[in-house]
């Protein structure tokens, strides 16, 4: 999430950088954001 949001990489670039398969990165971006959303909502 950090690499994509703050550094502007595409998810396939992130996959190369972290040496992980594409579906893993896709899922992590989504799961990471969902967790972030849930955390933020809980705090509100």
């Amino acid at each position, binding site marked *: *999430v950090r690499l*994509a*949001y*703050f550094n*502007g*990489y*595409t*998810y*396939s670039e*992130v996959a190369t950088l972290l040496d992980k398969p*594409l*579906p893993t*990165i*896709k*899922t*992590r*971006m*989504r*799961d*990471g*954001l*969902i967790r*972030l*959303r849930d955390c*933020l909502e809980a705090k509100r």
Partner: protein
Amino acid sequence: MTTDVHTLSGAYALDALNEQEAAEFREHLRGCQACRDEVRELRSAAARMGAAEAATPPPALRTRVLEAAARTPQQPPSGVSAAAVAMRRSTKRRRRTWLAAAAAAVILVGGGAVGVGALLGDDEPQQQQLASAPAEVFEADDARTASVSTANGGTLRVAVSPGANEMAVDTRDLPALDAEHAYQLWTIHDDSATNAGVLEPGATGAAMALPAGQTQVAVTIEPSGGSEQPTTQPIAVVDPAEV
């Protein structure tokens, strides 16, 4: 790709898809309310993360930008003007307007480049050559210059150009300060001091408008970033009228 298209929502919300994938996902969004909701929520979460990380720019940056703007002379439309004048004589009004706009655009672009250069240049390590703004004052036809010994064992060179209504200091022969301190310029009139600019580390000098009569220019050592009012005794005081 066998993965479910829905899982792209995260990457899409982060703008991390390439153009083709993004276009495909937008196509999918049109028919999928669940994904539209999710993208909206994930974007808002990402935006709040971004907002939490946002940094307030240091106050010195504002001062530096405004000072750079104040001491950067507006550039005459050199080069363009001659061509524009020639064209104006022989063409119709519509053309003229277009040319004036083009000339204005050239000036704006030029001014922007100078401003950015002046800002970036401040962060460079000790330069040998005097920065262009003060150098112009030192090299003016009517320039009067003086060298003043400073209380901390350095030499401050001062130039005054009444024609350009500017003065400048050359600070290359002042002792280097540690990272916590900076030289700051002041104009002093009737015992009241007005900030005239903080010298960034590695700055070679500064140019400023020539102060009115009975105003002195002083240099103090201040915490880096500068102070609202002088906090130390000046290391040098110069009366531009006596240069």
